[in-house]
């Protein structure tokens, strides 16, 4: 039972990690890459922490990992926010999906 939970969380970590990497490599501009990385790093790493906490049971390791998890809960989004604000203040324009022009756009009535 407990081992099953550990395996589930490790599997989730692997999936989120790989998908986040794909997002980081393929997305078009810094903001969207930041979205993918905040998925990738935060969710995968927190899944690993939860798996470790379940595996260790009630011990000193769990307390320490809990502190690291709480700190990571704060530090990772704030890091992403700092980078995003830097890009925003630098004047990088967010990428936008271009709308396909249809015949309606040329009809003026």
């Amino acid at each position: 039972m407990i081992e099953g939970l550990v395996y589930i969380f490790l599997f989730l970590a692997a999936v989120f990690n790989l998908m986040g990497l794909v997002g980081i490599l393929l997305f078009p501009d810094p903001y969207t890459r930041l979205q993918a990385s905040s998925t990738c790093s935060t969710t995968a790493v927190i899944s690993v922490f939860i798996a470790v906490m379940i595996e260790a049971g009630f011990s000193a390791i769990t307390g320490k990992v809990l502190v690291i998890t709480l700190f990571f809960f704060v530090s990772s989004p704030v890091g992403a926010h700092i980078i995003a604000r830097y890009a925003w203040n630098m004047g990088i324009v967010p990428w936008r999906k271009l709308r396909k022009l249809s015949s309606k756009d040329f009809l003026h009535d």
Partner: protein
Amino acid sequence: MTTTLAFDLIGYLFVASSVVSLYRVLWGPTIPDRLLGLNVASAQILAILVLYAAKEKLHVYLDVALVYDIFGFVGILALTKFLEKRHRKGE
């Protein structure tokens, strides 16, 4: 424990993905891309440290992990402050 093998595999996966995310550090077109790659790599190395500590039951690695997390965060903050100042001076 039988979970040791799974921990090993996930550790190797994280090592490989932190190497891949260095692509953005080296060839990122803009500065935020490079910072983002550093952020991702540091988070994955943090996960590797915690996995290793849980596998070997070594508490020292957890202390290292906490300090590593704090320093990664402060490093990103200091880099952006420095770059913002330089950016403003350059204009």
